[in-house]
């Protein structure tokens, strides 16, 4: 457990130091959402209607694109080799890295969501609900993206490959995330069922993601 915590804290520290990727995801998210009105026009009613969808799409892309280098940096400087030689099972090591990534990338993104909601003319109280759906859904995105990040390292390719591999897998999260957010804001469907499914998806990927990612990393051994 000390090894797990040490890795978690190291990754968070790395993300927050100069050159780290913390806040970069939130920044991307902010810019991405702020660009929406330029494409669809500044009609506030329209923005209210598509607001939750835009926020979810932005969060989806931000959390996946930021995952690109999750294992690549450790692979390039030899750290990944040593991470595999610890007594900590690789599955747990991978999970520690994912949790650190979620805390430094996804959490800031959720924190600024209410501000972005104002710009998309979504009521402040409703924004709380959207942030809640993101809080419940982004772990699923991170842990599914984890698999893509591991595959990308195993294949020695980065960049868009990750998104291409993983985006289709995140469709259920997107469906239930936006459904829950919309239910909270405009109704009339109840908020509970889609939100429960969203939580279930997160929990399932919390378990599945580390195993698949560790398997991918082991396959890529060379």
């Amino acid at each position: 457990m000390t090894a797990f915590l040490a890795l978690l804290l190291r990754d968070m520290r790395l993300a927050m130091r100069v050159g780290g990727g913390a806040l970069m995801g939130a920044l991307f998210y902010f810019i991405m959402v702020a660009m929406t009105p330029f494409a669809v026009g500044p009609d506030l009613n329209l923005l209210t209607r598509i607001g939750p969808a835009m926020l979810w799409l932005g969060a989806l892309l931000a959390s996946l694109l930021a995952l690109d280098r999750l294992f690549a940096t450790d692979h390039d400087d030899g750290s990944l080799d040593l991470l595999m030689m610890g007594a900590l099972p690789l599955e747990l090591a991978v999970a520690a890295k994912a949790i650190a990534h979620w805390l430094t990338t996804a959490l800031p993104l959720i924190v600024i969501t209410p501000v972005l909601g104002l710009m998309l003319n979504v009521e402040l109280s409703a924004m709380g609900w959207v942030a809640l759906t993101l809080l419940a859904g982004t772990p699923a995105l991170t842990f599914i993206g984890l698999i893509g990040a591991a595959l990308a390292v195993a294949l020695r390719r980065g960049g868009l490959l990750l998104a291409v591999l993983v985006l289709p897998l995140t469709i259920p999260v997107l469906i239930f995330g936006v459904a829950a957010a919309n239910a909270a804001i405009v109704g009339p469907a109840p908020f509970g069922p889609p939100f429960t499914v969203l939580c279930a998806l997160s929990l399932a990927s919390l378990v599945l993601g580390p195993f698949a990612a560790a398997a991918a990393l082991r396959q890529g051994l060379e």
Partner: protein
Amino acid sequence: MRTDLIDLRLAGKDLACERGGRLVFSGLNFSVSGGEALVVTGRNGAGKSSLLRLIAGLLRKAGGQLGITGGDDEATVGEQSHYLGHLDAVKPSLSVGENLQFWATYLGAPRGAPIGPALEAVDLAQLSDLPAAYLSAGQRRRLSIARLVAVARPVWLLDEPTSALDSASQDRLAELMRKHRASGGMIVAAAHGPIGLDEPRELKLGVMG
């Protein structure tokens, strides 16, 4: 002195290694006992690095058996080994001390054990607070070696350990290796020239094929 480690034996039997569809070596036998050192030699591409990575568990073997007897039966060979490869696994934005502390904790140093002596052993103690980004290649290498001192593991797998080291640091490394063997540890090193080991056994790769 960890005399209990003297009974250790690391052995490979009929090992084969394949990389990218090419057979690097096959039918390889070796064994090292506590206190011994094995130097792996051979031309470029003979599979020296591959053998070390294979022992470390970082490369899947294409055949044969590999095992360590007399040690911790629960742990794999990799978990009882230190691997010093071409890459230093040093994060530039962390300080020298933070880098070592992380690997010491992660690789299983006893809780609360100070890293000072290990930094002292590679002569980096006064740079402990310096971000590792400022280190030269040789200093990074030394920081990497400090890991072997900070966490006690019976097997040291060293891939060209003297590269980037000046002669003073090479001497220091030789001293560390001597101590490690004296306390019952084993060393498997890949090298082109002498790296300061006393009476090493030699394993020559690339002659049987």
